[in-house]
């Protein structure tokens, strides 16, 4: 667990001296600033923060943070970050990854990180495209999407990051639009507070290779009508007029209008992020109208490092070995004179 700090940081304290080199208009700038704004509120010492990334546009992120950081290799950030956290559980360790990095080349590390539940904060920049290699389809690109490597349309069905993650036992999954920095900062702070692997999918627009990929959900004028931002313990209400809600009809989610057919707020689903059963969380992840954002799942569970350290303590308590000589000279030794 990270020690909190008395130091009063501002977002500027977390900005490195490096010039940020993303394309103009990229949501990555918004995410960077949201992280820099969240960290002072989290109250962790700068020297205790580590950003680990893989490869891709988003993975340049650590260079722009004035903390410890490593720009790793493609797909391996979860494994590198796991090593950092196990070596020093006191650190606040963040993984920066993209849809190609985490779900194509790094898919294996991604699912095993989630399964183990190591206390990492993972920000997944999903733009449904390979940006750094100039526009090939990614594991989240849509069927039919025309890209550099699918000029006649993509034939590979996409992963839904939340569905994959919860299937891999993610205890914490949140989704936010790439143009809502306040919601983002809120989610980042909650992710850091959560003990275990916290995965945040940011719907990030790529203005160069996949412009407008999420605009039907994220554009300012449609956002409130198309997105439901869930909060634990609160009824699932959305819409500009705050008059739409979600109910469960059999095994399906259904959108209802408050005041119509006698529907009141009491009839709506109340969000329970903390329940172990992921059934409803998966339904929320899959919902296309409304698109559900916010912390969809936050089930508190034992972390990997808690299991490891409990075991180490137990073994230590039951062992008479304190130094290697105790081991080397133990058991079946014999003297030669």
């Amino acid at each position, binding site marked *: 667990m990270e020690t909190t700090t008395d130091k009063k940081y501002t977002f500027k304290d977390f900005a490195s001296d490096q010039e940020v080199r993303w394309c103009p208009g990229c949501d990555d700038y918004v995410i960077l600033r949201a992280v820099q704004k969240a960290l002072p509120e989290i109250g962790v010492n700068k*020297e205790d923060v580590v950003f680990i990334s893989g490869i891709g546009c988003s993975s340049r992120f650590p260079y722009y943070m004035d903390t410890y*950081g490593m720009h*790793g290799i493609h797909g391996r950030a979860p494994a*590198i970050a796991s*090593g*950092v956290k*196990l*070596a*020093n559980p006191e650190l606040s360790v963040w993984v920066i990854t993209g849809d190609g990095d985490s779900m194509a080349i790094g898919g294996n590390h991604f699912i095993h990180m989630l399964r183990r539940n190591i206390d990492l904060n993972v920000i997944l920049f999903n733009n449904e495209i390979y940006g750094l290699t100039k526009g090939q389809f990614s594991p989240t690109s849509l069927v039919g999407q025309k890209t550099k490597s699918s000029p006649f349309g993509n034939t590979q069905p996409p992963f839904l990051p939340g569905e994959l993650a919860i299937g891999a036992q993610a205890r914490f999954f949140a989704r936010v639009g790439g143009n809502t920095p306040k919601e983002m900062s809120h989610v980042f702070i909650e992710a850091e507070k959560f003990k275990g692997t916290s995965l945040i999918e940011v719907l990030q627009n790529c203005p160069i290779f996949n412009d407008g990929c999420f605009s039907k959900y994220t554009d300012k004028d449609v956002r409130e009508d198309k997105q439901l931002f869930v909060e634990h313990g609160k009824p699932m209400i959305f819409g500009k007029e705050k008059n739409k809600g979600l109910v469960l009809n059999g095994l399906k989610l259904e959108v209802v209008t408050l005041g119509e057919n006698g529907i009141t707020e009491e009839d709506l689903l109340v969000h329970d992020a903390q329940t172990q059963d992921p059934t409803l969380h998966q339904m929320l992840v899959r919902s296309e109208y409304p698109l559900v954002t916010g912390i969809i799942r936050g089930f508190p569970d034992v972390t990997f490092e808690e299991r490891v350290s409990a075991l180490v303590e137990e073994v230590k308590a039951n062992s008479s070995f304190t130094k290697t000589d105790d081991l080397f000279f133990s058991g*079946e030794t014999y003297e030669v004179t």
Partner: protein
Amino acid sequence: MIEAKEETQKQVLEQVVVRFAGDSGDGMQLTGTQFSDTSAMFGNDVATFPNYPAEIRAPQGSLYGVSGFQVHIGSVEISTPGDNLDLLVAMNPAGLKTNIKAVKPGHMIIVDADAFTKKNLEKAQYESHPLEDGSLENYQVIEVGMTSLTKEALKDVQGLDNKSIIRSKNMFALGMVYWMYNRSKQHTIDFFNKKFKTKPELIESNTKVLNAGYFYAETLELIPNDYTVAPAKMPAGTYRIIMGNTATAWGFLAAAEKSGLELFLGSYPITPASDILHELVKHKHFGVKALQAEDEIAGISSAIGASFAGDLAITTTSGPGLALKGEALGLALMLELPLVVVDVQRGGPSTGLPTKTEQSDLLQAMFGRNGESPVIVVAASTPSNCFNYAYEAAKLTLEHMTPVILLTDGYIANGSAPWKIQSVDDMPDIKPLKVTKGDSDWQPYDRDEETLARGWAIPGTPGLEHRVGGLEKDKLSGQVSYDPDNHQAMTDIRAEKIKRVQNYIPELTPEFAQEGELLVVGWGGTYGNLYAALKDLKQSGVKDVGLAHFNYINPLPKNTAEVFSKFKKLLVCELNTGQFASILKMQFPQFTINQFNKIEGLPFGTNELVEKINEEIS
């Protein structure tokens, strides 16, 4: 068939080679280990060679399912498991058929006669019965109904099923061999008590069968000789028998303690390296953090993360695993972080021969990465010095801030030998280059002038926040740099850093001769065999043949060319098609280098080496 001698005579032998062979489920590895451990406790020098199939339980009685364990014990210095056998114990026809060639003519074969059924003979592809057709007349064959005698010995023991009874017949064989070589049974009985603590019926049954074999041999007129092998003269001290993989694991434990760091292992199971993982996971009491990762890449990547955060980080693997780790290893050398990669070499390419030995990963260790990516490469050469070279690999990586590949191989990793226990107090100091205070002038790629190693600033240290990455970095600040001159400079520095390690490693000292006709050159796990061959030659009067054996491969010892220049001819012997020879040819084009290579999944035999060397000098 040679008739058994009537009278019993005591014979003192300098050395004896025994091989136990049977089905992979017959417990031959355990039997051999017990015999070698007992002999070592008695004071013999020992060397072992387990040789088993990749299948866990191959079909019973099949030729390819034969598992063997060879033990060489001596009152003299023993450096190999031996070429030819004084005694073969064959638990079935397949064990006999696959091993008979190794038995010295006139020497002894003990067989479980009960296993020589028609069915088993067919499985072993015998056309006629080898015990009856006269084909073994050049050997002393002792036929023992081991299965039935084992059953008889256990008829009064309660609570055993037929399978457990038959499975303990290996202890009957061991009992016989113990009697033949005057070994005490106590070590093995102690072993039963420990291993079967919760199953008293197995302690009783195994002890009974061991005793039954022992007394059977004693009372049997058929056992012709009462051999004994006197204790060997070895330097005074406390010893234990150690397997190469265990010694490797312990070397890292010692290095972690000495350096004051915690040990982190990121690893994925692979034969024959897995035993290092098995050993290290036991030692949580020393704070060892071992992550069994989802794959080889996560194994090394988690180790890189742990190294970044300040642990002594290692990853362990075998051939194909090293291929998978290549990219991450490049990252570690680019970051200039400490990391040891252990490669327990096995037969390749691809899946190759997972349980057999080979030295064919050398060029992969040297060059198996993209870009100009030199790393330090060291190789252990005996089961017990795996301890020293694991320790040395850790010391080098921590003091030079660049990855080290430690090469061992299946032969020394699975082989065991006496180890004169080394206390951590007597090991050389290890000084990690941690940067501790936030000096405003500090730069992430500031270097030590002598070694060119950079400082190790770990997360949690105030004021030293910095970023590293796989992109080329500015030679001082570590920031991303695409500057042409800087890339040239960094490439040169990374190479020079490795070269300067020469100043910190021992010079090469040839054995047997310092100058002369022929220098036999080896590296890594072939040392014991080469040493034995040179010793044989010396005993037969050959004088001016030397042995130069390398443990430091990259960089090579400083005086390598000087040593080579003292001999008229060079003969590089290795278990591949000439990989070390090619490195030497590249670095020392002035010398003519001859090669002796073998790639059969087996270690060199002493005899074939002697023959080849004689050919070279005649």
